[in-house]
């Protein structure tokens, strides 16, 4: 297979673009896609202080690598989840990347700072681990960005993530979430930080190829709690569609943003006004935010068990 843009030998085919690229041309292609997304959706400016959420996997490190190369002012943010062998390796990977590239990094260890690891939180609150983890991450990312004076929070979500989330939200008619599905969400409250997803035009397979071709030392292990996760099932379904009909994922997600999302914009807040949590000051639609309620339940359960 030949490269679409030069006489070189291709290393990756991208069927939805009816194209194949050699190493150098693919890297240029991927970085242009990301740059185009950042500019098209007005995600970032060179004056922004960007907090980049980095788990240590291929997507988040690809994001940090490209933002660094494009000249944005970035600081990494890594959350140590306290998951057996997985978390120490993820942390070492992120710290290694930051050190190698001379980039600032903020690390929050949930067990050290908030008393419970993610598996403990899940157990004490009877949540599935991915639920406790997702809630903790969203809370800590926004809070850390606010406290550090960052203007934007960037995450490494790719096209597969976006399409799978859209499928899940549609299957359950989660209308507020459907209104918030965009790749760039402006801060709608003084206690919320703008969030952006610059990788949303790349599939997960393409971010993997970018990470491998750039020689990024990413953390390759799957989180043990993700085995059997619904998101994996949705991604598998969507990739079956993609195989039969190249471009299906892109058409599904970007078609929704253009033609479907406007109908759900008004449902974003479900008519409920955002206010500040009486315990921590972060945004919530109830008196106490979901994170504080989860932590309170975990503390009470732990105390009851220790009696």
């Amino acid at each position: 297979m030949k490269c679409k843009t030069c006489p070189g030998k291709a290393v990756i085919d991208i069927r939805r673009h009816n194209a194949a690229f050699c190493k150098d041309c693919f890297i240029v292609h991927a970085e242009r896609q990301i740059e185009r997304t950042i500019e098209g959706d007005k995600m970032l400016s060179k004056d922004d202080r960007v907090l980049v959420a980095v788990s240590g996997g291929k997507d988040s490190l690809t994001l940090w690598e490209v933002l660094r190369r494009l000249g944005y002012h970035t600081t990494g943010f890594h959350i140590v989840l306290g998951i057996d062998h997985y978390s120490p390796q993820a942390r070492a990977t992120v710290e290694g990347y930051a050190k190698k590239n001379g980039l600032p990094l903020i690390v929050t260890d949930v067990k050290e700072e908030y008393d419970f690891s993610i598996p403990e939180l899940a157990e004490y609150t009877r949540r599935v681990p991915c639920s406790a983890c997702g809630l903790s991450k969203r809370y800590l990312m926004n809070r850390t960005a606010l406290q550090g004076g960052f203007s934007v929070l960037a995450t490494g979500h790719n096209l597969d993530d976006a399409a799978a989330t859209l499928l899940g939200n549609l299957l359950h008619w989660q209308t507020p979430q459907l209104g918030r599905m965009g790749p760039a969400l402006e801060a709608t409250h003084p206690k919320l930080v703008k969030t952006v997803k610059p990788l949303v035009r790349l599939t997960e397979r393409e971010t993997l190829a970018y990470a491998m071709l750039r020689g990024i030392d990413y953390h390759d292990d799957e989180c043990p709690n993700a085995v059997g996760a619904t998101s994996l099932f949705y991604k598998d379904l969507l990739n079956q569609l993609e195989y039969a009909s190249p471009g299906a994922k892109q058409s599904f997600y970007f078609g929704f943003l253009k033609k479907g999302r406007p109908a759900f914009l008004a449902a974003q807040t479900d008519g409920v006004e955002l206010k500040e949590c009486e315990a921590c000051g972060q945004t919530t639609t109830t008196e106490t935010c979901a994170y504080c309620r989860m932590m309170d339940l975990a503390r009470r359960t732990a105390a009851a068990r220790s009696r």
Partner: protein
Amino acid sequence: MKVIVRRPRREVEMPGSRRVRDLLQELKINPESVLVVRGQELLTPDELVRDEETVEVVPAISGGSAHEV
């Protein structure tokens, strides 16, 4: 040829040479969800893998809370 599949890790011996697209089809693996590598080299579907070679099928898809949008 030897094919190493990750997550869960397994090794498959396949006699003879074949193209990447054919080996994925025989293993019932969707090409949209993986990359196939020989050493450090990424392989396109038309690439021929010879009997004496080893290739690795690297999964691209991961899940869990990190991937919720």
